[in-house]
């Protein structure tokens, strides 16, 4: 199963590298969101070093931007396969449906991590914010949180792929489920890391890890039933 999954992931990443369609759009989107925050904080005099020093504000802005970009990216995970009816080939291939899930998870996760890290960079450059030197822990949290969110999102995207109207509803469904399981603990962990409260951060990291295991597990159980027999 793993080999088939990696083949699917490699195919997706190759398409991504060659066309750069999704990645370019998502990078621009993340940049625009960060800049919107930047200009709205202007009202509070962020350039005087006031709010920029808030270690509670930055994690929230960072994660909201990452979640918005990933949600946008999730919409195309399966619907882009519909264009050339590639999805039928994928479903007919002698590989289990779970391989399809794992493959899509790996390729989406790889793109979203790039977006998350670029968002971190944008925030650092434009707010500006120095993350108090805690670059590696914040990167680790971004990797973990993005993985958990993608694990949920790939399944949600699979269900909504075949119907256009549902794509509008997808974020409405996904964000409440992820809010308490992924987004809030990740924000809390990031601000704990920035405040150097490592034991607090560890609790929340465990919580996000538990959620991602739960999402991967449930997805592997239901993924086979998502497609018409």
């Amino acid at each position, binding site marked *: 199963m793993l080999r088939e999954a990696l083949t699917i992931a490699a195919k997706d990443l190759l398409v991504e590298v060659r066309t750069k369609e999704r990645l370019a759009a998502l990078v621009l989107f993340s940049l625009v969101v960060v800049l919107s925050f930047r200009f709205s904080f202007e009202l509070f005099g962020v350039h005087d070093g006031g709010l920029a020093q808030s270690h509670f504000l930055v994690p929230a802005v960072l994660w909201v931007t990452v979640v918005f970009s990933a949600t946008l990216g999730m919409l195309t995970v399966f619907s882009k396969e519909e264009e050339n009816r590639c999805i039928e080939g994928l479903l007919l291939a002698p590989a289990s449906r779970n391989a399809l899930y794992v493959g899509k998870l790996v390729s989406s996760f790889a793109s979203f991590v790039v977006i998350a890290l670029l968002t971190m960079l944008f925030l650092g450059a434009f707010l500006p914010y120095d993350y108090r030197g805690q670059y590696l822990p914040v990167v680790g949290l971004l990797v973990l949180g993005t993985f958990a969110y993608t694990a*949920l999102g790939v*399944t*949600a995207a699979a*269900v*909504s792929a*075949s*119907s256009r109207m*549902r794509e509008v*509803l997808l974020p*409405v*469904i996904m964000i*409440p*489920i992820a*809010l*308490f*399981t992924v987004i*809030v*603990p990740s924000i*809390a962990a990031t601000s704990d890391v920035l405040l150097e409260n490592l034991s*607090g951060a560890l*609790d*929340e990291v*465990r*919580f996000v890890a*538990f*959620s991602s295991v*739960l*999402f991967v597990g*449930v997805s592997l159980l*239901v993924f086979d*039933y*998502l497609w018409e027999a």
Partner: protein
Amino acid sequence: MGRRESLGTGLLVASMVFMFLLAALLAFYLSEPASSFPDCGPPPLPGCWSAPDAFRIFLFHVPLAWTAYLSFGIVFVASVAYLRTRDLRWDTLAMASAEIGVVFVTLALLTGSIWNRAELGVYWRWEDGRLFATFVLWTVYIAYVALHTGTRDVQEARLSAVFGIFAFATVPVSYLSQFFFSSLHISIRPTFPAETWPTLAVGVVAFTLFFLYLLHWRLRIDALEFRLVGIKETMEGSA
């Protein structure tokens, strides 16, 4: 037809009997001031109640919350059953159960925040993980109901079923959140005195029966709606 009608009437009568029993127990058995709670005034400490008499709202709050979780459990089981069997009746059951569950969880949130006001002076505390988790649960199932328009469309049923499963996965997570976010959760553990247990049990039975009664009628309405759609289509076809 007659069997279904009598099931509905039976459930109504049974739930009303238990509702009256609950009201009677509240009126006659638990009517004197709650002296078994030590009144320590604010700030609230474990075992201390600043508004000891307000605890009676728990005799509605706990059954309402229990029924809400029961209905979300039914949504989960029916969603799994739908994905396995592709029988649209499971999908209808999940939708009906979710609709009623949203009403019950709304009432549980309202009674909970009324107690909060009496005991702590504020209606809502965002910093309390349990309240936040229940609020998120409420939005998740409102999204479920909004998504499920009940048109018996196969794609919609599939999406709803997967959503129903994931939505329920957040229930244990929201419970576990109390232990993970211990810093956020003000621990007030209301201990129920032994004399309130029979009333609480009656309340749980009464609300469970009432839930089943509502569920029965929701399913009947759906079946009638579906028949009406069928009749309309035949009429349009013949015209």
